[in-house]
């Protein structure tokens, strides 16, 4: 085991993958908790898929796809947020539409771009082992932004998540806070995409907080435990993927999902056997 780890982290790309997992774990733990508590998982998925439009456009115009993804995820976050705020009841339909439009734009511009584009697959399914130094810088920046956002606005975010009406009556800028939160979700989606790909981003955002919520009844605790769980899932997944030579992102998701199911079973059978 020790030899395996020593061998594993003798590679630069493995060390990068580890740092990337840690940074993304922080952003996903904090933001994922908000996504789960606000019940906007679908919106998170929408932002992730719409971001593909930005990736396609950036490819076509020869720009950095990461930049395109960031731009598109921010725009789609704002668009979906406004729709969600205006038309509460039907917002899922419109979000579904934007989700598909983003994907469609992406696919068209990718196919219009001549030449070799194999690494586009990495945006769909993740490529943790291909994380570069500059990717790490972007991840660190976004993780730092998310930390500042959550720490500064914690009580306000908790309030709008728990009781929007009461927050409005206290004259908090509910809509503005909500939109900023969605932009933060968009940024988190972009960094998580490097690890597990946009299709599985939702799992990275939701499984750690859902697992934490089995045991903790406090938003702060949930956020911290989610970060820890995200790290744990990523590290176990990374080691397994190295040892078994399997795709890292998918292994991480499976580790996370199995851990969630295991934790739910433990809770049901051992902690509250009578419930």
């Amino acid at each position, binding site marked *: 085991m020790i030899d395996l780890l020593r061998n594993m982290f003798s590679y630069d790309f493995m060390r990068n993958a580890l740092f990337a997992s840690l940074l993304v774990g922080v952003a996903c733990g904090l933001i994922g908790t908000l996504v789960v508590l606000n019940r906007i998982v679908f919106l998170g998925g929408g932002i992730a898929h719409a971001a593909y439009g930005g990736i396609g456009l950036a490819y076509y115009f020869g720009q950095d796809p990461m930049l395109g993804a960031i731009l598109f995820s921010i725009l789609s976050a704002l668009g979906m947020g406004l729709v969600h705020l205006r038309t509460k009841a039907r917002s899922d339909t419109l979000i579904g539409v934007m989700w598909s439009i983003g994907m469609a734009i992406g696919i068209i511009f990718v196919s219009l771009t001549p030449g070799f584009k194999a690494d586009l697959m990495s945006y769909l399914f993740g490529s943790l082992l291909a994380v570069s130094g500059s990717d790490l810088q972007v991840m660190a920046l976004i993780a730092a932004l998310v930390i500042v956002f959550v720490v500064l606005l914690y009580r306000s975010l908790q309030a709008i998540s728990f009781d929007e009406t009461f927050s*409005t009556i206290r004259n908090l800028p509910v809509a503005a806070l909500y939109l900023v939160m969605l932009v933060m979700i968009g940024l988190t989606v972009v960094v998580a995409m490097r690890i597990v790909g946009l299709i599985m981003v939702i799992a990275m955002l939701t499984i750690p907080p859902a697992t934490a919520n089995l045991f903790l009844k406090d938003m702060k605790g949930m956020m911290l435990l989610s970060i820890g769980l995200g790290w744990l899932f990523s590290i176990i997944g990374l080691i397994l993927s190295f040892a078994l030579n399997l795709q890292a992102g998918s292994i991480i998701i499976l580790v996370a999902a199995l851990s969630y199911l295991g934790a739910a079973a433990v809770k049901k059978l051992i902690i509250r056997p009578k419930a």
Partner: protein
Amino acid sequence: MTGQAVIELQDVWAGYESDRVLEAVNFRMEAGDYVGLIGPNGGGKTTLIKVILGLIKPEKGSVCVMGVSPEKGRHFIGYVPQIQQDNKAFPIKVWDVVSMGRLKPNPLSNLYLTETDKAVIERSLKQMDVLDLAKRSINELSGGQRQRVTIARALATEPKILLLDEPTSSVDSRSSSQMYDLLAELNKSISILLISHDLTAISTYVKTIGCVNRRLVYDEKKEITSEMLSGAYDCPVDLVAHGLPHRVLPSHQEEDDHD
């Protein structure tokens, strides 16, 4: 007897898109009042609350809270919403719920609780007799405890007016009468507006009573007239008095609500 109006509605018409819910509503509440408004489901109780809180704009008419627009005046209102089943599972402690009463409009100034904030939160918890629950998660509370925590949150805003929406909907009768005793105590310093379909409970405790059903019947009296009730419930109502409290037994030929 014209004291200062804490809430005043003049000729208010309000509703949603094609569905008008309130018509020509006039209502005036003064400092120290304890008003109970009853009405059937779908009769506009919730809409009336939203109008007073500035959450929806009336099509016509004017609304004043503490002499200014609802947006400016609503921070004087301690709002006690109905307990929502869907955020019952939200992971939050009683202390954190009540501390929402201390939220300031600028999100950046909510970074931490000041000593004053903490003192007010503690006082509010004590007033509602839930201080010992402060560290508990709200999921572990009974309906009555949750209701008191929600009132404590409203008190933590240091309100001039307490606005309660169906305060006894998820509370058993013993804790509901305890709650009304506490409200009577609070009414010594705070005006109270209580909205409910539970006529029996309301009529025992409030000072004046009115009915909402599209229109508002309110003449600043305690008595419920059968005219008021048939207006409010759209069906003939017999008033049967077994001493106090009044008991109301509707003799139904009720048409079902169309929705």
